[in-house]
């Protein structure tokens, strides 16, 4: 799985404009929406991420400094995303602690990014709500009829209609 590609797919789905910028530290995916903008950095290993994230952040910001100065309040809404597929559990917490550094940009730093689902989970702060429960019709009547196959269909129909409870009881007695 290519993390850059997956990240761009998700961001574009979420109405971001995305493009790739090749800086001195390698490719960076830039993204921007009506409210946010930022940079996605991908590292081969956790060590590489921990060693280079600050520099990469600086490089990206430096490259776009002029634009950011013109952005007004939006300049506060810059995200730096640092991702690595490395599954080094020992360094995972260390990587995630980067997010608690509030200087310059809001950071998203994650290891263990190996599937599109991992990319989506990492980018959640940038995306709209993903889960959209579809609470459609529950077909209560059909399910109840299926469940009550040992009861006379006429009795079930009377139960599901406006028939009075006493009349339903009578029908149940007559048809049982």
């Amino acid at each position: 799985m290519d993390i850059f590609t997956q990240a761009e797919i998700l961001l574009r789905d979420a109405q971001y404009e995305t493009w790739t910028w090749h800086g001195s530290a390698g490719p960076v995916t830039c993204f921007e929406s009506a409210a946010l903008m930022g940079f996605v950095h991908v590292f081969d290993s956790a060590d590489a991420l921990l060693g280079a994230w600050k520099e990469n952040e600086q490089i990206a910001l430096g490259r776009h400094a002029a634009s950011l100065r013109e952005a007004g309040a939006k300049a506060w809404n810059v995200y730096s995303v640092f991702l690595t597929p490395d599954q080094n559990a020992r360094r995972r917490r260390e990587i995630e602690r980067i997010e608690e550094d509030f200087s310059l940009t809001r950071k998203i730093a994650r290891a263990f990014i190996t599937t599109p689902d991992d990319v989506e989970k990492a980018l959640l702060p940038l995306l709209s709500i993903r889960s959209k429960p579809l609470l459609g019709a529950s077909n209560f009547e059909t399910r109840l009829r299926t469940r009550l196959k040992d009861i006379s269909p006429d009795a079930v129909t009377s139960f599901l209609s406006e028939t009075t409870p006493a009349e339903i009881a009578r029908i149940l007695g007559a048809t049982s």
Partner: protein
Amino acid sequence: MRLEFIEVCGFRGFRDLVRINFGRGFTVITGRNGVGKSTLCDAVEFAITGSIDKYAVEKAAKESISDYVWWRGDGVPNAHYVTVSFIDDSGKPFTITRTRERGSNRSSEEIQSALCRGSAPDDALRQLTRTSIIRDEWIAALSLDLSETERFDLVRSALGALEGSEAGSKAKAVVTAAETAHARDEATYEAARSRLADRLTQQSETQAALSRSGDVAGALQVIAASVPDAPTELMARLAAGRTALANGLARLGRMREALQRGREVVAAQAAYNAQDAVAEREAALQAHAAAQGAHEAAQKVVTEAEQRLSREEEMDAMAASLSLLIEHGERLGLHDAHCPLCAAQRTPHDFATGLAAARRRVTSLASGVQEARNALASAEQSAQKLGLTLQKAAAAVQALADELQRMRDQEVALVEFYNQWGLDHRFIQDPEGLEQSISQERDQLIDLERALLVLEASQAVARMSTIEANISTLRAEIEQLAQSVRQSQNAVIAAREIERSVRRVSAEIIDERLAQISPLLNELYQRLRPHADWRTIEYSIRGDVRRFLSLKVGDGLNPQFVFSSGQRRAAGLAFLLSVHLARAWTPLMSLMLDDPVQHIDDFRALHLVEVLAALRLEGRQIICAVEDPALADLLCRRLVSTPTEGGRRIDIGFGPVGAKSVVIDREINPMPVGVLRGVATA
């Protein structure tokens, strides 16, 4: 549908008129403690429901929130009202105004019709405010701190009324109706069985009576002899026979009593006329006569003694007078040789001799009194003894006379008894004859009773066929009733099966729907990231009748007990936001949050802001009150403002005259786009 504005005057802590116009996209409200940020949430809730649920259970000194809905501070407001206005996507407003004096201008039905749609839950307006207004007080209380059943109910309410939700109560009513019908059938069946048991008992008794049947013709003769004038119809003859039998038994009883009395009279007469008794009576009469004679003689002696005593006492009195006279003579002595008493010429010798003789005479006169008294006492004593003897003799004679009288009374009473009951007078002096007559009468009555039994037994034959027909009918009836009982029993079983199935299908539907919103809960949990290690939250549902919704993190741990206060609030927010988003029964797109970041650290507050930003991207209207101006700034930057769904920043504070008012109200404009590409446009 979203909130357009609030206007409050004289409400809670707002004395003067304050109007808040909400941005269609979002509104961030800030201000120090006590400026009334929470009151704006109260106002929305109060306008919709007419109460403020947050304080529902808080009471002090018999006062509750209802006593403090309207302004109670210094000064008099110009009015007391709350107005909340909503606007739908087509721009049509819906406004609710509640005043202190007149209440709401909208009925609950109108409000529910405007703010709810489709299958709204019970108590829909309260559920609407509970799930639209997230207060600091509720974040933990309405999520992690809820009991598992309350949590289940909250989520189920958020899902709205389910299809077939009325089926549960209807199924219960069917079960009740079936049980009632079954109970009625069983009672009828039992009553029929009871009647059959009675008939069977009658049948046995009749059978026993039949076994006693004998010669009917002979029986008829006996009855005819006993009751010659009885009617010919059999039942009437039986009745007459029964009456005759009863009368005969009564007469027999009276004859037995007459026999007893007669025997007593005869015994008394025999005793009275016995030789000893006659001799005794004669002796008593003689003794009485003798005693009477002796007593009369003694009385005569007493009379004579009394007369003697009287004479002696007269003489004694005369002696006393003589003695005085003698003493007087002695004192005077002779006077010229004459007696001073009789003037006779006396010598001293003669005078002395005469005085001595007079003294002797006095002595002799006085000596007889005592003797006469002694004689009288003796006579009286003797007469008294004889009087007692006479009394005893008279009593003995009287006792014999009484005995005779009693016997005569018995004889008279016996005759009267015979007269009273028409008994044969021949038997008055013939108890033996009466006894024989009684024996004959008794034999006749036994014959009569036996004859009656025989005739009754012959009647039992006819009765038996009636009873047997009755039993046959009853058995057929019972068979039918048993069939009805079986049917109604089956109806109960079927009704219970329907009820069970309704409950299970409903539960399954709820479970499925909860499963459908589970990813949403998990996504919000992951976004808010309350805990560094436990990155997902799971729910589980238990119970059949009472349902429980429990939340678990990690290896089945209850977050209520393992999370810190801030983490619990973050997890609670995830839960409440998922409930808010799962509502399909309201068009209201507004989410109000009252200071949701208390006890939450900056890092997790940032996550919350990002979640709210994600909700904004969904087109929801976010209204968030916070105390921290920096957080308000962050929200204003992070929540997206568009030309059609703009944002507002409102600061509430104390105005120039000290009244709470809006001190800053500004629009948050959309941000420029194309910044990073260097082609920024506003």
